[in-house]
């Protein structure tokens, strides 16, 4: 650096000054941005606190409010019109509503959407669709979708083949949000790939649709868009549509690994045994990951005839973990082939499932035969496992107990540990219970495992209870009637469920009804369940979605011994049936012999008539009213027939044990019939035709089906 042959020192100084200038600029910008950000934040904050009460007022306004509140509401409504001309105000307001939408649920959320449109804020979102900046367009689409502006469907749908990725993705999500069959439109029309993330989001959007009746996705398995095929396969698996065996098996030969794997998973889940040959055929050309899922599936669906192939793989496959999987598959099909050193616990589930049959667990198998149905032949592997690694087995049992406790009545095993006498008793109890409890056994025969609150709630008290004598039980019950609180509820429920003496059961039931209003479910699980029930009741506006199984009579009908009793049953449906029975009767009318068909049609007609005439039936009032277009309800609410109506309905549906209604569980009806007891409440309301309520357990089953 003796001298500068080419570059003048001046130039360097100029550069220095330039950089200095830039540094100074950045210095200023740093503080400018910081201040601006915090200023905006503060301004937003103040605007929000200003607007919050106004929005609340709009959302919770009701015509039954006192006069002053009414006046205030009207004034606010007029006042806000003036402000709405201001762009900034509208933007803030839209932001607030958009944020709120994420945090609230139920009727308030619906009212929020209405408010958004009423204030004309959706026009701004529409305007955003016309912007040339993709992020603004995407934002607009998002707003329209999240605020459920359903008439935006067409405007949004045209973006699903937009070349800007983010816009396209938002549009795809939006149309699924906005319309129930949006997914059909998407799968039919999309030309672009659907990324895995997008598939995830789309399923999330589908899940958020209440009472969704998915189309048969096999329609799209022939699509030319690879991602549509892949996504359809996943949807088929997700929605358990097992009617596309041939297409799925053909797709195992697809060149794309993801599609292959998705198809293989479907085959495994739906147990398409005829796919075995196709699986073997493609095996050699597959990548290790596909091979692994192929072998797992072969193990699941294979038979002894396939052992030769698997053994061949196990011998010749160079990749150790694949060969290992082949051995595992062999063991799954034919447990005798187990090799002494093979891994035992690599797959924890494997042992957890099979251990059900292991003698190490004092199982209640005899009480609940259906529960063990799913245990495959793999169960025989267990003795070998148990002998070899004892410590591990203990571990698994512990986990098993923790996880599975609610599907098994726990008391028998606990009692077995306590004393032999109680053990005997408990078995007796179970058998008696099965005999006495018609409803329960019917549910079993439907293949549904009752998961009911009483079992989740199991307290030590309950097990004590099972050991008590008749007298002490009575005494306990009386004591509870005198000084009981909400904490007794689980025990009472347990009694209702398991007590063999009908009188005690009835007492428990009555007692429960008295406590219930104060303790509508002391446990989350129960509360959630109740909500679900309410949801079912709310969503009955679409009868088409109810399957025949939803009817109480379905199970009875399945077990009726002869034609006459079936006819009698159908006649009964006329008396007490509601929309749930319609699907059932339709089913009968289509699938049964002539005489039954005639009866069914008659009944159908009668119920439909009654449904239109008779609006006073207490239990149908919820569903009746909700049958009307949801929109109109929202209309009413906003027009002022009481914003809490939706919630009131919900509340009605919530507590089946509301003190004001004297419905009794269906099981009790049967018991009363048997014993010839007349229940007071029953008589008074006889004319209404509906004198029982569905037990929670039944609702649980409904939930599981739906």
């Amino acid at each position, binding site marked *: 650096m003796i001298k500068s042959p080419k570059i003048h020192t001046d130039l360097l100084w100029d550069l220095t000054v330039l950089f200095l200038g830039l540094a100074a600029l950045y210095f200023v910008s740093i503080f400018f941005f910081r201040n601006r950000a915090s200023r905006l934040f503060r301004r937003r904050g103040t605007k929000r606190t200003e607007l919050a009460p106004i929005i609340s007022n709009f959302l919770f306004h009701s015509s039954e409010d006192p006069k002053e509140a009414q006046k205030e509401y009207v004034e606010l409504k007029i006042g806000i019109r003036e402000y709405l001309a201001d762009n900034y105000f509208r933007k803030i307001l839209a932001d607030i509503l958009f944020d709120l939408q994420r945090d609230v649920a139920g009727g308030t959320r619906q009212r929020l959407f209405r408010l958004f449109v009423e204030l004309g804020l959706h026009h701004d979102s529409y305007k955003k669709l016309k912007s040339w900046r993709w992020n603004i367009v995407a934002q607009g689409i998002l707003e329209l979708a999240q605020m459920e502006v359903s008439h935006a469907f067409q405007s949004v749908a045209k973006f699903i083949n937009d070349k800007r990725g983010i816009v396209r993705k938002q549009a795809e999500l939006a149309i699924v949000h906005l319309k129930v069959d949006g997914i059909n439109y998407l799968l039919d029309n999309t030309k672009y790939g659907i990324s895995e993330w997008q598939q995830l989001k789309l399923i999330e959007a589908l899940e958020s649709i209440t009472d969704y009746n998915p189309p048969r996705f096999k329609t799209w398995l022939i699509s030319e868009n690879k991602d549509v095929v892949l996504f359809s396969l996943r949807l088929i698996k997700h929605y358990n549509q097992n009617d596309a065996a041939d297409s799925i098996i053909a797709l195992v030969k697809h060149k794309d690994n993801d599609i292959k794997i998705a198809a293989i998973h479907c085959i495994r889940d739906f147990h398409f045994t005829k796919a075995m040959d196709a699986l073997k055929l493609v095996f050699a050309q597959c990548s290790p990951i596909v091979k692994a899922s192929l072998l797992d599936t072969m193990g699941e669906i294979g038979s002894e005839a396939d052992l030769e192939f698997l053994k061949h793989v196990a011998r010749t496959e160079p990749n150790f973990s694949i060969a290992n999987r082949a051995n595992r598959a062999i063991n799954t099909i034919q447990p005798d082939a187990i090799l002494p050193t093979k891994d035992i616990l690599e797959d924890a589930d494997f042992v957890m499932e099979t251990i059900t049959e292991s003698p190490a667990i004092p199982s209640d198998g005899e009480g609940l035969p259906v529960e063990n149905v799913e245990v495959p032949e793999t169960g025989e592997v267990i003795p070998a496992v148990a002998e070899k690694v004892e410590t591990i087995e203990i*571990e698994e049992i512990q986990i098993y107990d923790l996880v599975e406790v609610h599907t098994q009545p726990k008391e028998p095993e606990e009692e077995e540990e306590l004393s032999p006498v109680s053990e005997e008793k408990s078995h007796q109890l179970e058998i008696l219970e099965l005999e006495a409890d018609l409803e329960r056994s019917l549910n079993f025969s439907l293949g549904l495992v009752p998961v009911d609150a009483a079992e989740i709630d199991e307290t030590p008290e309950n097990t004590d209870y099972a050991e008590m004598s008749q007298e002490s039980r009575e005494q306990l019950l009386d004591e509870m009637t005198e000084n009981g609180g909400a904490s007794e509820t689980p025990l009472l429920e347990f009694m209702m469920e398991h007590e063999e003496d009908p009188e005690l059961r009835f007492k428990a039931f009555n007692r429960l009804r008295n406590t219930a209003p104060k303790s509508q479910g002391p446990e989350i699980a129960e509360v959630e369940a109740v909500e679900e029930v309410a949801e079912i009741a709310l969503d009955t506006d679409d009868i088409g979605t109810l399957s025949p199984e939803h009817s109480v009579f379905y199970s009875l009908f399945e077990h009726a011994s002869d034609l006459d009793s079936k006819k009698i049953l159908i006649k009964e449906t006329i008396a007490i049936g509601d929309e749930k029975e319609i699907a059932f009767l339709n089913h009968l009318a289509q699938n049964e012999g002539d005489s039954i068909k005639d009866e069914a049609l008659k009944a159908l007609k009668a119920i439909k008539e009654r449904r239109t005439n008779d609006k006073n039936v207490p239990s149908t009032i919820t569903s009746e009213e909700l049958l009307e277009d949801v929109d109109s309800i929202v209309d009413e609410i906003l027009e002022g027939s009481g914003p809490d109506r939706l919630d009131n309905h919900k509340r009605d549906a919530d507590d089946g044990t509301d003190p004001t209604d004297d419905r009794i569980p269906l099981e009790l009806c049967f018991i009363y019939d048997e014993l010839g007891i007349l229940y007071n409440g029953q008589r008074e309301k006889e004319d209404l035709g509906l004198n029982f309520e569905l037990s929670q357990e039944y609702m649980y089953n409904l939930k599981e089906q739906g």
Partner: protein
Amino acid sequence: MSGNLFEIVIEYLNTVFLLFSVVLFTLLSIMGYLSTRNSIHYRNKNKVGDISKVMASPLAPSITIIAPAYNEGLTIIENIRSLLSLQYVNYEVMVINDGSIDDTMEKMISAYNLVKVTQEIDPNWKSKPIRGVYRSRQASFSKLIVIDKENGGKSDAINTGIYLSDSKFVGCIDVDCLLKPDALLHVVKSFYQRSKKRVIAVGGVIRIANSCGISGGMLEEIRLPKNWLAKFQLLEYSRSFLLGRMAWSRLDSLLIISGAFGFFDREIALAVGGYDTNTVGEDMEIIFRMRRYMHELKEPYTIEYIPDPLCWTEVPEDLNILVNQRDRWARGNLETLFKHKDMFFNSKFGRLGLISYPYWFFYEWLAPLMEFFGFFTIIVFAFTGMLNWEFFLAITMTIYMFSVMFSFYAILWDVYTYNEYKKTKDILTLMFCALIEPITFHPIIVWSAVRGNYKKLFRVKSGWGSQVRKGFAKAT
């Protein structure tokens, strides 16, 4: 005559130095521009997506987090607890005890109620022998797997993890890293958002957690480090992650994913044979190899980078540890570049061969050496009285101002995007760091790099050294 020749040589040297600086300025400016574009794009893109609901989706892929642990007895229990509480459903935490000689293993067994399970292991698997696979007896820790193996170094431990995992994606992290609860959601999104390219790896920002308020495995309060070395590193990391990697990611030419927070498609990672156990720059080397593999397969692929602050870690506050760490990075750099020298300006590898590799060669590897020798030349000139002081002053100021400006830009961007440091005092402190960094912190870094290169080139025996575990390839 000889004086004349000497002058010509010096003129050439001058030109080379100047050219080098000018190209560097230009490249850095382009990088600044690209990263700005990319950050704005990223921000706009993520404004419209909500990731929280996806955690329990039926399509959510499985992820295994692999955390090698060596003599971490003091903190291991808390660290694992923090890893187990991430917001995601389909994941497991695999802690690899790399033959610790303290009580790491015993502590884990008792705290998490571990029990040995049998697992079949490929007798030909090339990593150090596995002593046992452990799982917890408690259902609440069902996500935890602990592998006890003989000591083989970090790469060997992670390779074992990749092999034993069953998941679609594997994440390699330092066990003492603090992950934000939604970190895995971001990772899954990055892996899954492409429909045309296969994402083979995902990397992220490393943020500095020194002096931050941490309780119960959660980051409670973000504070500027009190230690000055850590402050300088914070500035350095901001530049490198917010500007540098963001720009490389824009060009789809990311060459490095930090070992402290890197996720891989397990299938590809296995196919390339996992980490190279013979280099100390394994986190860079594996990316080179994965890219090479995909190029040879001719499959469209990419490597994603997440700028959100998801991973927080502590950087060395001790000068010796820092020098050793940078020394190691320099050696790793050299080893990797040497191993893949066929990529140099090789159009067969696309941008990788034409842009990333040469940049890495000239500006990550050669630059510190140039600076070092330039410095000595100047001293020699100054003593021989041949130094043109005016020119020297001018060019020094130019370079100095450029570096200050670039740091300011990084701070600006930090403020504009995530604004983690709320106090005005903190921002001013960072700016002060930027002002004095070229004459304080930077020489240390240059010296460490030169030392590393010297060791490597002159075969001075040096492995990870005893300082290794504290530093453990924190960033980069």
